[in-house]
């Protein structure tokens, strides 16, 4: 039932007589949901749906949001709790947190939601979080689902300050997912909230996707086996960790934060270590995975130690690179480099942004064209085209794709990416 840790080096040895730059893929794998568990009741959910009903949500967006909220209420059972909060410039607790005995109670309330004024996003989150906190159950999955199509323009609006407050709540057992809808939301803010919230980031361009998103979020919540997941990489004997390609946030202990772990998932973390000339059988690093489990009170952890064969430098260069590792590193690198394209866009440098996309594609073109690489190149080609037609949308998509390395990012089925 527990996750496992695997090491896969780009080259299967390190140098005995010279320094080595060691590229290492660390894979966190979780077992699929066992059949006997599927029959057993899942942990209860304690959720709030916080819906933006600011003026910009008017029309079809709000009608789909209502529809999706009705779907969500219909999927929950009497063991689960749900609250519904709406916000514009004011916050309204539409349905206070209660067990979902009769979905109709929720549905009739949802049908009354009308579009209003400004976007007091933080206050909406706060009211929603309070609904969940009042019913906080350490054995349940406690989460705020925040849906917004706008920029926070009322109340607290500073992204860093909002994220800091969301992070404080995560530490106290309530996570937050951030769902951006349409073309007007602030992708940097929503990304920061989902990262600080230890939740899911979704960017939906069409409100039609909302019901699918909620279904996937429920599925993800019920198959969650680890929250507040951290990866501690300790290099030994003079080895040094020089890079983590996923750009994972770090906590005070120097550990890297991973997204929630779910059943049947594989998470790849690419790291680069710098080693002096290495002695045989000498441990290179230990890696410790730690997580909070919904079933257990205490924090869970597991440790793996890395040792690799040593060879003379000259022979090392002859060794084949592991194509799987090379591919994963290239994909992580491409996610990271999207940030450069975003920076260029922010400076109004369209040529610079196009150039960095072209450079990413060039590196991917040099690799064996596996399905994953082809998908990635297709995403880049789309961005290149989109950048000249709709800079805002291309920036949003680039941000979402850049965050795939460090967050649970929802991907619609018609995207070419598989949703982990």
């Amino acid at each position, binding site marked *: 039932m527990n996750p496992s840790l695997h090491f896969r080096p780009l080259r299967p040895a390190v140098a005995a007589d010279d320094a080595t730059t060691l590229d290492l893929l660390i894979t966190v794998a979780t077992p699929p949901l066992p059949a006997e568990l599927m029959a057993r009741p899942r942990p209860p959910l304690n959720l709030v749906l916080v819906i933006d009903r600011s003026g910009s949500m008017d029309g079809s967006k709000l009608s789909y949001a209502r529809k999706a909220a009705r779907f969500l209420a219909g999927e929950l059972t009497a063991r689960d709790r749900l609250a519904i909060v709406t916000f514009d410039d004011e916050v309204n607790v539409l349905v206070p947190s209660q067990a979902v005995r009769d979905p109709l109670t929720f549905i009739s309330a949802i049908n009354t939601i009308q579009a209003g004024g400004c976007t007091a996003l*933080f*206050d909406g989150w*706060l009211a929603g*979080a*309070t609904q*969940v*906190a*009042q019913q*906080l159950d350490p054995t349940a999955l*406690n989460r705020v689902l925040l849906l917004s199509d706008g920029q926070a323009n009322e*109340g*607290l609006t*500073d992204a*860093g*300050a909002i994220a*800091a*407050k969301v*992070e*404080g*709540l995560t*530490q*106290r*057992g*309530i996570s937050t997912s951030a769902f951006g809808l349409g073309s007007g939301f602030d992708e940097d803010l929503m990304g920061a909230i989902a*990262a600080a919230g230890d939740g899911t980031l979704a960017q939906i361009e069409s409100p039609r996707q909302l019901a699918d998103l909620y279904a996937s979020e429920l599925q993800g919540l019920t198959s969650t086996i680890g929250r507040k997941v951290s990866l501690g990489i300790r290099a030994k004997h003079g080895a040094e960790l020089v890079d983590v390609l996923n750009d994972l*946030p*770090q*906590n*005070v*202990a*120097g550990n890297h*934060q991973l997204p929630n772990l779910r059943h049947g998932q594989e998470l790849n973390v690419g790291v680069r270590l710098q080693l002096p000339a290495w002695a045989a059988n000498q441990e290179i690093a230990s890696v410790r995975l730690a997580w909070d489990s919904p079933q257990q009170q205490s924090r869970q952890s597991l440790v793996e130690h890395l040792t690799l064969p040593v060879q003379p430098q000259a022979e090392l260069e002859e060794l084949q690179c592991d194509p799987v590792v090379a591919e994963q590193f290239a994909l992580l690198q491409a996610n990271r480099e999207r940030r450069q394209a975003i920076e260029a866009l922010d400076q109004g440098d369209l040529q610079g942004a196009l150039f960095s996309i072209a450079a990413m594609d060039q590196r991917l073109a040099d690799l064996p064209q596996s399905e994953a690489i082809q998908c990635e190149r297709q995403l880049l080609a789309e961005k290149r085209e989109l950048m000249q037609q709709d800079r805002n949308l291309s920036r949003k998509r680039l941000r979402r794709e850049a965050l795939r390395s460090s967050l649970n990012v929802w991907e619609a089925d018609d995207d070419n990416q598989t949703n982990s």
Partner: protein
Amino acid sequence: MVQPPPGSASADPDAAEVLYGLEQLLELAGEQLGEEISSRTVRLYATEGLIDRPGKDGRRAVYGQRHLLQLLLVRSLARRGLSLSAIAPLVAGDDEALQEQLSQLDDGLEASTPARESNDALDYLHSIQSSASEPSPSLLPLLGAPLSSRSPSLRASRMAGRSNASSSRWHRFQLAPGVELHLSESASIPPTRVRREAWLQRLIDRLREQLDHQE
């Protein structure tokens, strides 16, 4: 509790400064604040100009005592609900000023440490709710000197009001819904804890007299 980092009070520019890597900085600040600080937070603060840009040691970013002081102060103020733009002018002072602000905050924190309750999350939300809904700027930077010599952000935020005798200016702070405190620009709040307590006590006595009188 926030403790001033050892040795930082005597700001001797010639003394070889202790430098930290990002990890060490996060660890030190985390220990003192009792909360986890992420590298992202530090980067954000640096971009926002709340923390000075780190120095460079080769490819590595290095941080000194001043960065640590700034980080401690920003976090401590942010936890009290100040927005980053309100914090910015407060972390621009020299090391000594930062140090002093920190120890002032420390006093306040000790006084208001809440008992640990069963529902930490709810307490937490209540605490950020009350601070987020407080529209007035903090009184904190007004300690010890007349308002007129204080930061531009506070002067900008003052609400104009004129007394009859002179054209002295007044600052207005909301203490609770429907309750405001007006402070003349020439007023000064005693900076030391003992004197400040006595001053507050006198104010409370005055207020109580007024209320009793009304009855």
